[in-house]
């Protein structure tokens, strides 16, 4: 997609956001006058900037505009996004340690590290150092999961 079209879409989204903010302020009670004023100020500023963006994009010729390459390597990109989302879901049930180890090994493999033994050893070492430094030494809390003690 050309950047100019992205600018036009962004401007339209800006108008929609600004309009919904203004509509939202109608529900504000009288006691929240200062909050209302501030939100109205932001909504109007957004509408003005969106208008400027729209006008400048309408005045520019589309031919010379740069094309945006949204995702350079779709396979690795979507694998990473999916991996992170699955990791997040597993964290809620299994706690920190097991999902983190699985995540390190599976993502390492998917992203192209093809030495399984070395990958497992590196993952174990990394996780152990993260656990010792952050959880044990610095007492940073990590998700425990619904299964509790498994961590």
């Amino acid at each position: 997609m050309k950047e100019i079209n992205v600018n036009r879409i962004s401007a339209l989204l800006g108008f929609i956001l600004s309009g919904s903010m203004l509509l939202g302020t109608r529900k504000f009670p009288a006691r929240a006058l200062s909050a209302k004023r501030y939100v109205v100020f932001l909504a109007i500023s957004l509408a003005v900037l969106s208008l400027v963006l729209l006008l400048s994009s309408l005045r520019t010729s589309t031919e010379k505009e740069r094309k945006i390459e949204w995702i350079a390597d779709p396979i690795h990109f979507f694998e990473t996004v999916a991996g992170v989302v699955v990791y997040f879901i597993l964290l809620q049930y299994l706690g920190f340690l097991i999902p983190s180890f699985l995540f390190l090994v599976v993502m390492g493999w998917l992203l192209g590290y093809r030495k399984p033994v070395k990958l497992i050893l590196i993952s174990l070492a990394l996780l152990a150092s993260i656990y010792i430094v952050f959880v044990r030494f610095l007492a940073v809390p990590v998700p425990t999961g619904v299964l509790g003690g498994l961590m």
Partner: protein
Amino acid sequence: MSTMLLSAFHSLISPSVLLAVLTGTIGGIIIGAIPGLTATMAVALLIPVTFGMNPVVGLALMGGVYSGGMYGGAISSILLSTPGTPAAAATAFDGYPLTRQGRGGLAITVATVASFWGGIISTFALLLLAPLLAKFALKFGPPEYFLLAIMGLASIVTLTSGNLIKGLISGLLGLIIATIGMDPITGYIRFTWGIVDLYEGVSFMPALIGLFSISQILQLTSESQIVQELAIAPKRLKREKLPKGLAPTITRGGLLGTIVGILPGAGATIAAFISYNFAKQISKHPEKFGKGNPEGVAATESANNGVVGGSLVPLLTLGIPGNSVAAALMGGLMIQGLIPGPELFTKHGAITYAFILSLFLANIFFLILGLYFAPMFAKVATVSNAILIPAIAILSVIGSYAINNSLFDVGLMLFFGITGYFLHKAGFSLGAIVLGLILGPIAELGFGQSLIISNGSPWIFFSRPISIVLWILIILLILPAFKGGIMKKMRAKEGESDSDAAGE
């Protein structure tokens, strides 16, 4: 001030602070040396970890990362010809040719010593200038604080490489996201869609980590490994003494970096390039630049480390972060309950001065580490992205979970990370969004209180002398960027007509 300095010095020599500075500096050098990873990301990931720490220890850790990160970029620039950070890009001009000539050891020595002195000069400037500016900030009232927030945003949007309007919209988006939750004056809850976790607002930490860290690793997915191998084996790197005659270049670079760092909107990359060009212009042998001249390395490295102390002057005194690392650092200060401004130098003086003094220490640490272990850090920089990406994702999860022990925050971090990736691709500034989010409550409070004082008249923002000065500064910040945009368009048009003429 002297009493506070003394107490700061006492807290600095405690083993925990020394360890924090050392760990931060090592971590910073490694992160800085790995292309694709930034000091901003490191500071963002560290903030939640510092939450439970003594403020001095936490800030010393982050200061170490900032200083180490700024220096670390030079190592990969010199030994791998791939700058670890954009600020070290100019270092490769002369640093890598020196390595190819078998004099990588000399380049590392020059870069380390120049970075050290650049850092020391700028930290001295911070120590002397910041309290003076902070005293001036005592005269500020609500309208001025609102305008300061606007000025902070104006400063960071000038850094936006592409469209200035999109930079401004990014900052505004940050301010809009900050309106979610309770309003700071009346406590009215808005835009939460019934989600209880949003009642206290969008926590800026998950947003900061998501925008600076997750979006960055998504960016890295398209590169299997940025650097392949070292140009020289670590063991073959010969240690050389610092050549004579570099002192003026280093001093100039350090001062230039400090000044550029103080100016909101400019950053380490700009400082390094200005310093390099200046050194080349006044040199008796400009033809030697770009072919392995140690003076080129000294000019860039003293300037980019000079920015560290400089960028902290407006941050600590006025709450205006000059660059994205400083914006992340501001998050670190806020999380400790330290609001930038005069109080940092009075009520919290002992902590602030200890933080400033810890920067001197960080410079000494990276001087020693750089001179003796630089090749080892370069070796770390060749680590595969297949290992880096999941490791950073795990650290991001730990960081976003730690503040509120909330998985909702982890989800929020992922949302910001993925959305941030696409916003960045579309040309929006993630730094400006984060800054808007951090400055949002300050801006809203200043805006609301000012209008209460003036009975709703917006004239209050234009009638006070300091407000007028701040408006002038805001215009001065934005104007060059607009001018630059217009010039760019004019040049493009001229180019078009030139090529048309050539075609004819």
